[in-house]
């Protein structure tokens, strides 16, 4: 019988806990036998909470699922309900929606790059220690966040949990004059974003490759953010309305979380920056494309540790796109398109910073929500993260528990699991047989 030691790392104290999660790795006779990851609570509460509500309410309610990506929830919800009501957003309202979403990408990516992921590569326990040593670097991240907040405040009504978004558009749209100072701020910020790409491109990346099927939106001619058709690296192509025929969520043993898989496929799939980039790098705007090239990224990227570089490139992309949208902006005739209730189902999908976010609503003739379905990116990525960990741990069994645990967490952070939706790693258990 082999010796078995259990190691449990846990933290208690002054804390807000928005969920409960755990990573469990079991090693026996030098082989990784089991990897379990439970980092995500599916939004079933919200799906039930939405039933019986008016069709105008899901954008605001679902935006509270995640503090980091409320715009993604609002956008997918709006698009699903607009599809059910039979309307679509004309320009320039569609452009304003994309502009707001750019703000969320910049905000979320800057948070992840500077506060969560970079400290891993630089050997710091966290952003606080990084800031003590390299204040200028962290200030740059804060400046990116400020620019993002300016977009969110102008278009969303406030930087946290935007309140200006409604089915059919906005409650209020900006004047062209209001966008002028925002453009000035973004032009300065573009240089900071380019500096960020150069900075993270210089990190040392573990030699690691994932072969997951990749799933992302695509829209010929531009990088996918707020809308598009779903495509995969395995040749799939489908619309939002066909999502549930292709993406199957199922319960797995030992976990309350659902794992998603693609119908008819045995392996896991991934969504998020690497998938978006690999399937859409040719549609990057000029400065982002040049930054990606200079950073050494090819047309595809399959090393999850390099997701930090892709996020930095996408930050440049979002700023460029925001500037382009502002420069071409002409105020619409009205802030929204009227959308009367209509019986039927609608599907919406958008690219949240961490991947594809799907919503479906069924409405009755009075516009009351009869059922709701939400499939967030983090739940889709759980199986891919587990698969990565299995291979990653197997190659690093010579490391001591502390080091191995740290590297596993870094591997999980590659996927930027949603902070508010995904649970914190309060418990981590590593069994060595």
């Amino acid at each position: 019988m082999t010796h078995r030691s259990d190691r449990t790392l846990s933290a208690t104290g002054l804390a807000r806990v928005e969920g409960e999660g755990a990573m469990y790795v079991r090693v026996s006779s030098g082989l990784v036998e089991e990897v379990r990851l439970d980092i995500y609570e599916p939004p079933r509460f919200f799906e039930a909470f939405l039933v019986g509500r008016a069709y105008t309410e899901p954008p605001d309610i679902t935006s509270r699922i995640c503090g980091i990506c409320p715009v993604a929830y609002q956008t997918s919800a709006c698009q699903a309900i607009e599809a059910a009501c039979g309307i679509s957003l004309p320009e320039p309202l569609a452009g304003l929606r994309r502009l707001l979403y750019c703000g969320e990408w910049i905000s979320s990516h800057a948070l992840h790059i500077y506060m969560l992921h970079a400290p891993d590569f630089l050997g710091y326990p966290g952003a606080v220690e990084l800031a003590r040593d390299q204040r200028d670097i962290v200030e740059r991240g804060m400046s990116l966040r400020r620019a993002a907040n300016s977009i969110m405040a102008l278009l969303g009504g406030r930087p946290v949990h935007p309140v200006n978004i409604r089915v059919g558009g906005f409650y209020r749209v900006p004047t062209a004059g209001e966008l002028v100072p925002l453009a000035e701020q973004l032009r300065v910020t573009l240089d900071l974003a380019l500096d960020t790409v150069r900075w993270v491109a210089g990190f040392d990346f573990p030699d690691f490759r994932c072969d997951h099927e990749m799933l992302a939106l695509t829209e010929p001619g531009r990088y996918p953010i707020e809308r598009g058709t779903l495509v995969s690296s395995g040749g799939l192509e489908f619309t939002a309305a066909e999502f549930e025929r292709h993406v199957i969520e199922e319960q797995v043993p030992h976990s309350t979380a659902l794992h998603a898989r693609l119908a008819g496929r045995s392996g896991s799939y991934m969504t998020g920056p690497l998938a978006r980039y690999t399937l859409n790098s040719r549609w990057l705007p000029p400065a982002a494309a040049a930054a990606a090239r200079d950073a050494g990224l090819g047309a595809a990227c399959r090393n999850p540790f390099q997701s930090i570089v892709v996020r930095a490139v996408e930050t440049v992309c979002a700023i460029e796109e925001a500037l382009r949208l502002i420069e071409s902006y002409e105020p619409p005739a009205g802030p929204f398109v009227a959308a009367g209730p209509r019986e039927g189902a609608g599907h919406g999908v958008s690219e949240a910073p961490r991947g594809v976010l799907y919503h479906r609503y069924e409405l009755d003739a009075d516009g009351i929500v009869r059922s709701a379905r939400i499939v967030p990116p983090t739940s889709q990525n759980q199986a891919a993260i587990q698969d990565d960990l299995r291979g990653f741990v197997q190659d690093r069994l010579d490391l001591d528990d502390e080091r191995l645990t740290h590297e596993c967490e870094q591997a999980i952070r590659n996927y930027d699991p949603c902070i508010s939706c995904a649970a914190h790693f309060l418990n981590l258990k590593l069994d060595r047989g």
Partner: protein
Amino acid sequence: MSRQVVIGVGNEFRRDDGIGPEVVSRLRAQAGGQVQLLACDGEPARMIEAWAGASLAVVVDAVLASPAAPGRLHRIELDRADGWDIRPVSSHGLSLGDAIGLARALDRMPERLILHAVEAADFRLGVGFTPAVAAAVAPLVAAVLRDLG
């Protein structure tokens, strides 16, 4: 002119975690117009933006304690130089401890920072407080108003 800000941290769809936003909501009718009131998810960069340059920042948050006494209130006052170090509970997420640590490193602490922490019982998805936390709302609002003077 000195600026006062109250930041209610939490998520109203996480049961007791919603007490921060609830206190902010109640203060809208009771605090003077010059007091800035914000609900926030606790993300450090946002916290720092909210309190930087303030003469007084009051943060209201729900906490887990061990041993727990749901509804119990803690009032903790920090100043710029205070060495109190709240370690983040999580290896991934960011906490109030990170916000304070980051603000100190970037020299963006308010002149005074008061934390009102409420011991909570239930952070699961849902709406409404557990009875002990519900009973703590009114005394908490009163305590924050005392701090605002």
